[in-house]
C-alpha cells in the first residue's frame, strides 16, 4: 500500500505541475485584464501539434520544439489580443467570453480540417527514472522539471524585470498605469501573449508523455478552470499549487476508490471552494 501511495503521489505531482503551468496562463490573463480566455484549450492543442510536427517533420528534439511552441504561443496570443480581445476588453464580460469562444471554434475548425481528430504520439523516450518503488518515464520527469523552471522564469519576469513590473502595474490599476506613462495596451497584448505562451508550452510538455488530438486541449482547459479556483483567481503561483493539488487528487483517489470518481471529486471540490473560500486556497487577486 505504501508503495502504491508513493507511486501515486509522485505521478500526481509530476502531472500536476504541468497542469499548473497550463492554468497559470489562464489565470495570468484573467489577473491582468479580467478576460476568461476560452481559446485556452485549443492553444494548448496547437502547442502539442507544434512539438509533434517539429519532431516528426523537422526532426527537432521535442524539447527544442518547445521553443517553437513558446514562440508560436506568444505571437498567436498577441494576434488574438489585437484581433479579438482589445475592442471588447472594457465591454461586459459576455463580450470577451463570446469573442474568445469564437477564436476557440476557429482554431478547432481549422485544426480539425488540417490534422483531423486522429490521435498523435510524440514517440520520444528519455528512458526510465527509478527511485525505490517509484518508476516514471524520463519524459514525464523532465517535463515536470521544465514546468517548474518555466514557472521560476515567469516569477523572475514578473518581479525582476521592467516589463514584468509594467504587467503587474497594469494588473493592479490600468488607468493609473497609463497615467504613469505605461503603454497599457501593449502591456495587455504582451500579457495575453504570455498567457497563451504558457498554454502552448504546457501543451507541448503534455504531448511528450501522452497521446493527443486537436480536441485534447478541451479537457485540460476544464482542469485549468478548477485549478485557478483552487489556487486563487489571478494568482499564478497559486495556479501551480492548485495544479499539484489536482494532480494529487487524480493520483490518490484511485488508490481508495474507482477511478471514475476522480472527476466527481474534482468538481465537488470546485463547488466547495467557490462556496467556502471563493478567493481560492492561496488567495485571489483583489
Amino acid at each position: 500500500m505504501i508503495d502504491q501511495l508513493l507511486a501515486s503521489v509522485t505521478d500526481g505531482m509530476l502531472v500536476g505541475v504541468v497542469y499548473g503551468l497550463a492554468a497559470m496562463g489562464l489565470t495570468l490573463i484573467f489577473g491582468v485584464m479580467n478576460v476568461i480566455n476560452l481559446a485556452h484549450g485549443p492553444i494548448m492543442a496547437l502547442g502539442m501539434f507544434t512539438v509533434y510536427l517539429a519532431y516528426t517533420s523537422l526532426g527537432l528534439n521535442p524539447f527544442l520544439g518547445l521553443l517553437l511552441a513558446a514562440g508560436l504561443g506568444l505571437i498567436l496570443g498577441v494576434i488574438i489580443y489585437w484581433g479579438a480581445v482589445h475592442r471588447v476588453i472594457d465591454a461586459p464580460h459576455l463580450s470577451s467570453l463570446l469573442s474568445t469562444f469564437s477564436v476557440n471554434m476557429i482554431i478547432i475548425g481549422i485544426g480539425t480540417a488540417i490534422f483531423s481528430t486522429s490521435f498523435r504520439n510524440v514517440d520520444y523516450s528519455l528512458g526510465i527514472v527509478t527511485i525505490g518503488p517509484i518508476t516514471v518515464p524520463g519524459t514525464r520527469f523532465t517535463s515536470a522539471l521544465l514546468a517548474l523552471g518555466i514557472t521560476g522564469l515567469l516569477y523572475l519576469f514578473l518581479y525582476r524585470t521592467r516589463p514584468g513590473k509594467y504587467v503587474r502595474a497594469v494588473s493592479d490599476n490600468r488607468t493609473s498605469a497609463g497615467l504613469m506613462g505605461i503603454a497599457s495596451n501593449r502591456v495587455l497584448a504582451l500579457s495575453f501573449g504570455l498567457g497563451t505562451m504558457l498554454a502552448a508550452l504546457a501543451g507541448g510538455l503534455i504531448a511528450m508523455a501522452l497521446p493527443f488530438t486537436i480536441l485534447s486541449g478541451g479537457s485540460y482547459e476544464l482542469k485549468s478552470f478548477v485549478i485557478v479556483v483552487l489556487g486563487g483567481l489571478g494568482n499564478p503561483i497559486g495556479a501551480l499549487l492548485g495544479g499539484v493539488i489536482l494532480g494529487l487528487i487524480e493520483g490518490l483517489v484511485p488508490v481508495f476508490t474507482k477511478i471514475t470518481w476522480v472527476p466527481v471529486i474534482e468538481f465537488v471540490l470546485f463547488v466547495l471552494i467557490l462556496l467556502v473560500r471563493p478567493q481560492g486556497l492561496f488567495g485571489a487577486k483583489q
Partner: protein
Amino acid sequence: MKRLTILASVLLIMALLAACAGGPAAPASTGSDTSADTASDTTADTGSSEAPATTAQEVLIGYTASNTGKYNVESSRQVNGFDLWMKQVNDAGGLTLPDGTVLTFAGKSYDDESNTDRVQELYTRLATEDGANFLISPYSSGLTSASSVIAEQYGKVMVTTGAASDDTYKQGYTGVYQVYTPASKYLTGAVDMLKADAPDAKKLAIVHENDKFSTGVAESVKAYAEGLGYEIVLFEGYDSATTDFAPFINKIQQSEPDAILGGGHFQDGSTFARQLAEKQVDVPWVALLVAPPEPTFAELGDAAVGVIGPSQWEPQAKFTAEAAAADGITWAGPTGDEFGQAYMDAYGEEPSYHAAGGYIAGLVLAEAIKNAGSLDDAAVKKAMDELDLMTFYGHLQFESGADAHGLQTGHDMVFVQWQKDADGNLVKEVVWPAAGRTADPITR
C-alpha cells in the same frame, strides 16, 4: 464574487460543450462513390430464346467510415477490406442471379468522425436520400448500435462488422447480422490459455474501457474466469478518453495480479500497453482487446513484446474448401492466402482481422443475395437466416431465433501474441487455440 460567479457559469457552459463533443454536425463532407463502373442497361445473353434477357443492375451499399477520430485505424482497415471485396466482384463481372440479372456493386460512404450522433444522421441519409439497397455497419459496437436502429427503422438489411457486442442483437431487430464472434466469447479463450499454459496463475486483474463492447467483454470474461476458480483482484473500467493510465497502473500493481485482461480499442489499448512498459509493470501475462492484432501495434517496439490479443482472424488460419466439404458446409470466396496476397497487392500491408471482417461483410451479403435470387429485403433476410457458410475467415452462421436474431453463432476467435524472432524482429504468433499454434506463448 461576481468574477467567480461568471467563472462558474463559464465552467458549466464548457462542461456542456464537452458533453456535446464533436460539436455541431458539419455538412457531410466526404461522401464518396466507390462504384467500379456505371452499370449498363442491358447486356446480351447467348442462351435460348426462352431464357430471360440478361439485365445489369447496380447495387448500392451504404456505410460510414471513421476517417477521423479514435476509431480511425480499425475503421480504415475495415473499409479497405470491403473495398477490396467490391473491386474483386465487380472486376469478375459482377454477381449473376438465377434469373440472369448481373449485379455490380457500388459503395456510398461518409466520415462518421467516430461519433454516434453523426452515425445516426448519416445512416438516415444513406437509407433515404442516397437510396442504399443494403448497409454495412460502421466500426465499433457503439456506432453499430446507433446505426442498427436506423437500419431497422427503414427495413434495410445491415451486415455488421467490427462490432462484437451481444446487446445489439437482443433488441428485436430482424435485419441486422453479425460477422464477428460476439463479445461474450471475446476473451474467454485467454482464460483457457492461462489454464493450459500458466496453471500457477490464479489472480486476474480485469480492466476495461467504459464502453458497450469492452464492458460486455469484461463482464463475460469475469463470470467465465470466476467459474473456473480464478480470483478477480481488480475489476474496473476507465473512461474512453483516458490517455494517462499512470494512476490506473499503480492500482493494478498494488493488486499484484498474475495476468491483466481487458482494454478497449486500438488507441487506448496501445497507450495502455506503452505505459505498462514505461512503468515496468511486472505482470507476466497481458491480454488486451482489439489493439494487439493490428500490424501497427508493432510500432510500440519492446512494449508490444508478450502482449496477447484476441483476433477474429489471422493470416495463418487455414480454413479450406476441402475441410468445409468434409463438414457439409458451403464454401465461398478466396482462400486465406489469396485474400492476403490481394490485400497486400492493393494496400501494401498485411491484412488485419478488421480488414478481413470488412471483406467478409461484403462476401456474406453477396452470398445471401445470390441465395435469395433477388434484392428483395425479405428474401435476403430469409437467406441470411439460413446461411451456413465456410470462408477463409472461418465458419459463419447467424442466430435466427427472436431472442438474439442475427447474433453470430458459427465463428470462433484465435489469440495472437507479439514475440521476437531469432533476428530480434517483432512477429505476431498464434498462441491459442493450441491446435492452431504457430508458437508457444511467452511471458512478458
